[in-house]
């Protein structure tokens, strides 16, 4: 049996949950058609299994557990009804223990919590445990708890986290430590480019990524094509980028393969797929280590290095380390970023918490036979009358009510309702009988959330004025492209659609000083969490540009290591050497 997060508590004599098992669903031996979803760990406590079957029940997930003692056990399942309301919950599933299927259907309560499954009698020894999806509409199971005592585990997140540590007898610090020259967290295009750049300069690099495939928003799991120019780093970025196929295209699979093939060539890149960072160790404003856990097994490693790159998108490493960061739209006066053409939509007079939203891409196809799609009453108050058979970048959700990090699961679920409802409307058309949902991402394609503050904050004016910097390491010609929700100007529009505003400019530059933290001494950042204003992010948030950022900090890390200096000191003392290193990357690619 693989490393399985089953935790037998019988030894904890002083602990009230004696003779108990906690089984993390994501650690099941076989996931069947269920996906491991680690996107919301910080909000609900754990990766979980998701039955994302687009309306068709998915294959059972199963595992084998060892009962040291037979007899009767009470069973609780940690789950959630993701669309509470006046309908049968859409994400229902059952749990099978051995040959016995527990009577209740799970997925009924509106918040993450433990739903009681009744009592089950098990023999001593091995028993098969199965999750049986009933709907294909995103049922979710975090964990299953067996106990001889009828006492529900805690629901409140902080208490639950402590309880989990107790039950699993885990020490606070990871059991294993690994040391590298450079640790990159986040395996999107920025993170990959950063790892490659540093590895080419001889650094021993750890690349930690919480998904099974690299690429982030460009991966086959999210499928946004890469935009922007290559700048100095065409050689590196061509290993990582995508063709200009339509967003959502399955051609993204081939690009995944290309990306992984290239990454595998670098022996000194140690790839940690399905590992999600969950904390940092910081001393005197310097990150000592990043702690990460395997999203399936729960195994933990402490990654120690002199330099770290935050390529998480949400700026998690910086956030945990205490880095200064920004979220929301700054007042137009803060950086003088106004554009009369769009006024408040572009840059508001008074700051707020609205940012560009997250997208969920999706597509359907026309088959040569009929496919029915179930009624989805639970989706219709979001979709209303809107009808569609695919979803591009405009399928985006953001408003004053939701935070792109804290409410990420709510945002994803809102988009799923928008998609299922709109497709159900589409299916009502007489010529849509053969249309079938082919793919709906369950991962959010985020545009904007936390932005870590560096020594320079890149703004709209830097793009508009095409400001030259002595440390210009990233360049872009793409227009500044800021989104707003359509219902802000037309309340009749669905709340899940956006529009884009484009400001055309010539080539503009991003300085190296926007790519390291202002107050965390050894932290670089690349990707959408770099140091920029809300409007400034509009242009360089696309993935070739963020890839340039990644490569630039990868090379910077190599020189920092060579001279034993901080990222800031590299700018102050070794800029010429650094810029030479950046410049020579273009050789042969002009």
């Amino acid at each position: 049996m693989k490393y399985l997060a089953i935790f037998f508590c019988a030894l904890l004599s002083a602990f009230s949950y004696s003779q108990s098992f906690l089984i993390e669903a994501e650690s099941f031996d076989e996931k069947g058609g269920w996906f491991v979803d680690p996107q919301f760990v910080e909000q609900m406590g754990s990766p979980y299994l998701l039955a994302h079957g687009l309306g068709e029940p998915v294959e059972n997930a199963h595992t084998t557990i060892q009962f040291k003692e037979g007899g009767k056990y009470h069973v609780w399942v940690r789950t959630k009804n993701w669309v509470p309301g006046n309908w049968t919950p859409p994400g229902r599933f059952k749990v099978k223990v051995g040959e016995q299927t527990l009577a209740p259907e799970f997925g009924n309560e509106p918040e993450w919590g433990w739903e009681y499954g009744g009592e089950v009698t098990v023999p001593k020894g091995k028993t098969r445990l199965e999750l049986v999806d009933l709907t294909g509409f995103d049922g979710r199971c975090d964990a299953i708890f067996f106990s001889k005592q009828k006492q529900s585990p805690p629901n409140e997140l902080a208490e639950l986290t402590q309880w989990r540590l107790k039950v699993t007898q885990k020490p606070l610090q990871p059991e294993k430590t690994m040391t590298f020259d450079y640790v990159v967290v986040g395996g999107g295009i920025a993170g990959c480019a950063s790892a490659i750049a540093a590895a080419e300069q001889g650094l021993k690099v750890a690349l930690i990524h919480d998904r099974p495939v690299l690429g982030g928003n460009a991966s086959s799991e999210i499928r946004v094509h890469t935009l922007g120019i290559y700048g100095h780093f065409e050689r590196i970025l061509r290993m990582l980028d995508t063709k200009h196929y339509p967003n959502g295209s399955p051609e993204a699979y081939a690009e995944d393969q290309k990306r992984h093939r290239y990454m595998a060539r670098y022996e000194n890149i140690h790839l940690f797929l399905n590992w999600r960072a969950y904390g940092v160790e910081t001393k005197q404003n310097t990150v000592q280590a990043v702690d990460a856990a395997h999203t399936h097994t729960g195994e933990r490693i402490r990654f120690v290095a002199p330099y770290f790159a935050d390529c998480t998108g949400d700026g998690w490493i910086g956030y945990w380390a205490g880095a200064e960061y920004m979220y929301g739209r700054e007042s137009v006066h803060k950086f003088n970023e106004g554009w009369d053409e769009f006024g408040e939509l572009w840059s508001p007079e008074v700051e707020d918490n609205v940012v560009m939203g997250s997208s969920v891409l999706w597509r359907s196809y026309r088959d040569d036979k009929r496919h029915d799609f179930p009624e989805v009453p639970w989706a219709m108050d979001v979709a209303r009358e809107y009808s569609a058979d695919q979803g591009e970048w405009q399928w985006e959700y953001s408003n004053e009510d939701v935070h792109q990090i804290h409410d990420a699961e709510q945002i994803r679920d809102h988009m799923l309702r928008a998609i299922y409802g709109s497709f159900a409307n589409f299916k009502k058309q007489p010529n849509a009988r053969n249309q079938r949902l082919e793919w709906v991402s369950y991962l959010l394609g985020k545009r904007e959330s936390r932005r870590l503050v560096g020594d320079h904050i890149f703004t709209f004016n830097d793009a508009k004025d095409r400001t030259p910097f002595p440390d210009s390491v990233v360049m872009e010609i793409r227009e500044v492209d800021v989104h707003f929700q359509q219902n802000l100007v037309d309340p009749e529009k669905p709340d899940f659609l956006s529009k884009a505003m484009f400001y055309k400019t010539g080539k503009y530059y991003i300085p190296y000083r926007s790519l390291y933290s202002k107050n965390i001494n050894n932290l670089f950042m690349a990707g959408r969490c770099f140091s920029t204003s809300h409007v400034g992010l509009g242009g360089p948030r696309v993935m070739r540009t963020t890839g340039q950022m990644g490569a630039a900090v990868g090379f910077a890390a190599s020189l920092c290591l060579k001279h034993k200096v901080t990222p800031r000191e590299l700018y102050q003392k070794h800029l010429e050497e650094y810029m030479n290193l950046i410049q020579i990357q273009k050789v042969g690619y002009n």
Partner: protein
Amino acid sequence: MNGKLIKKGKQYGFTLILFLMGFGSWNAFGFQGSENPRKPLKVKGEWPEYALQVSEVVITFEDTVGVTHHISRLLRADGSPEGYVSHIETPVCTDTLCALMDIRMYWTLAGTYWAYDTIPTKPLTKNDHIEFDEKDYEKLHELLQDEQSILRRRHKDDLFEKEEKRVSQVVDAVTGATSKEVKEAVVEGAVYSSYTIYHLVHSQLAAVIREDLKNNLLTSLGDRLLYSNKIDERIFFIKELPPDELRSRIDPIIETIPEAVPRDRLYILKKMPSDLWNLDHVQVAIAEKSSNLDIHSLSYFLNQLKGAKSINPESLRYLSQIITTYSVNQLRSYLSLLEKTPGILSDAQILAAIQQAASDPDYPFSAYLKSFLNKQGIDLKQ
């Protein structure tokens, strides 16, 4: 602003010369100088019953393609302004094959699109000189009313995608999404005409009109704009108000909120000085309108109340009436407001609203309310 402001203000002598030199076609519209214009062909909202006169030219503006535009004010009988008007005669093609567009355009005092009219003998035309039909005129009106049309966000060169987006080998639908959106927005067969007129109306000329209003009329109009029946004019006035002057006019400003689009509602709420949120009558007046607020402005309002020194019970009572429409975050906010208001749960109306929602099996978040009541030591049913 692009283009060039040649002359503006009360240069009547100069404008009269211009008028005599090149404005013969204004006769065709049924007005000249200070004569009454007829009701335009297409009007957004209402056209006044009372007679309007056209002033002398007050703005002369050369646009980015070198065409000079002359803008007059529309005046009431007492000489006060009602809007702006200009006869636009402009090329709409990149070549010389199509006819010039002759159209009379009307703006509100806020510089937003109000109406347009044509010359009876000179119908608008599309490519190949095909005349507009009624559907096309209506489509143009629809386009001009759309403040955020795709045309606003696209450069003329980008109306048709030049960078060829490769059609997927594996995907049969796709791409061209942008050009499809453009096609849906414009008058069929008149892409460039639609684009040109849209940008003149919404960008270049609108900007100089707003400047004229700000520089020459705003003071004399006083608060008239705040009580206008055109929401755009009210919003314009509020935007021009310094925050400190908002206080003395807060009541009519709050009255504007439900009528505004969500963007402007949020703008107004954000512009309110923070101390206003402590005032009972402000809290109550907005709470009374809470059922007409959208998710953006309602969430903002609830968050502001969370930061207020105290919450007026009447406002909490109004807010309790829409408890079942809240998002989960809004519900959390509302419950936190109740928690910071001692004794509020003795209010029969509020308690009844909570208990009713909590015991409603169809209400998605009844569990929150049950938990809340439990925490407060209150039974589900009284």
